């Protein structure tokens, strides 16, 4: 089974293009439209990597990051954070919370795909789906 990438993003068209790109790169995709759902999905699906938008409804991307990196079980999940140009504070905060990589919006597709593949390669999760 192909490694699973969770896309935590509330903008449907960005989700659509990211899904297309990640699937083309040979990975499985799951989507969470807000922070709370993202946390739930990370707990339940144990993805090989997460693409996490920083501006999420319900729980912000930073909150999700804080929960994941503060949780001994989930901590190892590699997280690629999508930040916005000019929001340097968010970037610093995400770095402090333990984000593994950054891509700045508007991103280049190649950047996102390469970074995601690198994180999946680093992941200690076996290339398989959720625990049964």
């Amino acid at each position, binding site marked *: 089974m192909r490694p699973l990438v969770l896309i935590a993003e509330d*903008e449907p*068209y*960005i989700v*659509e*293009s*990211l899904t*297309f*790109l990640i699937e*083309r790169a040979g990975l499985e995709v799951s989507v969470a439209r807000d922070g709370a759902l993202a946390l739930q999905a990370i707990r339940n699906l144990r993805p090989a990597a997460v693409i996490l938008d920083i*501006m999420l409804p319900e729980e912000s991307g930073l909150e999700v990051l804080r929960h994941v990196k503060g949780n001994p079980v989930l901590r190892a999940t590699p997280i690629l954070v999508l930040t*916005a*140009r*000019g929001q340097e504070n968010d970037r610093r905060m995400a770095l402090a919370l333990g984000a593994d990589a950054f891509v700045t*919006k*508007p*991103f*280049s*597709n*190649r950047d996102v795909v390469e970074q995601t593949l690198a994180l999946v390669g680093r992941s200690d999760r076996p290339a398989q789906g959720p625990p049964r």
Partner: protein
Amino acid sequence: MARVPVGYRLRECRRKRGITQAALAAEIGISASYLNLIEHGKREVAGRLLNRLAAALDLDLADLTGAEASRLVQDLTEISADPLVQDLGIDQAGAQEIVGRQPEWGRALVRLHRSYHRASALSEMLSDRLTHDATLLQASHELLTRMTSVRSFAEILSEHDELDPGRRRRFTALLAEESGKLGAIAKALFERLSDFGDSGRPSTPAEEVDDFIIDRQNYFPELEGAAEKIGHTRGGLAAWLAHRHGVSVVPASFDHAAPRGLYDRDARLFHAPAAMAPSTLRFQLARIAIMLEDTGTIRSLAEDPRLTTQEARERAVGALYSYGAGALLFPYDAFREAAERVRYDVDSLAGLFGGSIEQICHRLVTLRRPEAEGVPFAFMRVDPAGNISKRFSLPALQLPRYGGACPLWPVYGALRNPGSVLTQRVRLPDGREFLFIARVTTKPAAAFGAPAETHSILIACDAAAARRVVYGDATAGPPLETGINCHLCPRPGCPQRAFPSILAAQAGP
């Protein structure tokens, strides 16, 4: 320091009128070679000869003595101090030549520079707003989101030739939809940003009004005439206003909102705060008198082309009402005669005419009637933070337009010595000497807890006039070596230097 390029101006005016040097020289009774020396700045020209030249060329004397020209020279010199152009090695003396020969180019440069300054300030303010303004934050998030999907779909379409037609159509449609939204958001964002400031104006309304007044040499004969026509207001201004215009003075119930009172035009009521100083009340009533008696002179003065916006014109109208009030309370001839008699002692004049220190200083600056001129004074007002809120330059003493003045000036020292009058002879880097007189004025708070209004006021006259001025007696010893501001001051080793000097930087071997 800016020297007035009178000769250049004369030469330009003469040429524009198609008059030969010989013809003009003959008309005013000097030799052509002497006129040639004057025109090339090799001989100073002033007094009667300058009057004759102005008359022969049908020129406004103010035009010739170059109140505007020397302001322009100073503005250009300050521009050459801007870090943006410092590496260009601009020759300071060139400013005089530009103003003398091509004043419109000088004006263009100043206008562009002001515009650049405003744009820089605006962008700083906007970047500040962007990080704090919820609406802007939301709009910029939207903008980035749309840009992200547009970029992503565009890259997919250009890089993935293998896309099936259905998907290609879908992504193309999404790209078009997102591009449309992007345009709309950008438009909304720009409209929102433009609310924060009109960046199209070359200078602020306050700067335009300053220029307008300084270029008129702070003297408006039309308003002196209007004030003289009102003349002595028998029984006091309040009674005169009540009798002639039905205006009543009533106690204000909103001291905090309007410390200088509020005039209700429709109800003909002046709401005066209880804590208002008598001199301030009189001045406000005089403004109302000028306003009600004005038959359109002030509005037509404010139609001056230097005032490019309605806001600037309104501001000028306000300044002219205040000028008129000064002229009414301190009638020109009586005031000038008294000023000469008490040797420009501001406290004595305040006592004689019942004015505040600031009003008296202000009026001294306007004693510029040809043939009946007082000692020419420059005037500057700063607040405790160092902001310059009023400035009237002299042709030889151009006060800085951008940033603060020389920190050694007594106008700042006075803030540390409220209650004292500081007098100081100063020498500028060009060798010219002036007498500076500074003091702090404080208007009491309107009520407990309300802020008081504190300013430091500077008046300055040429050192040659110091013996006509009582304050000249108090200055002994050598003059204090100062500059106009740090940028324009080459003096080495000044402990108060805040910025590097462009003059020092240019000093070659």
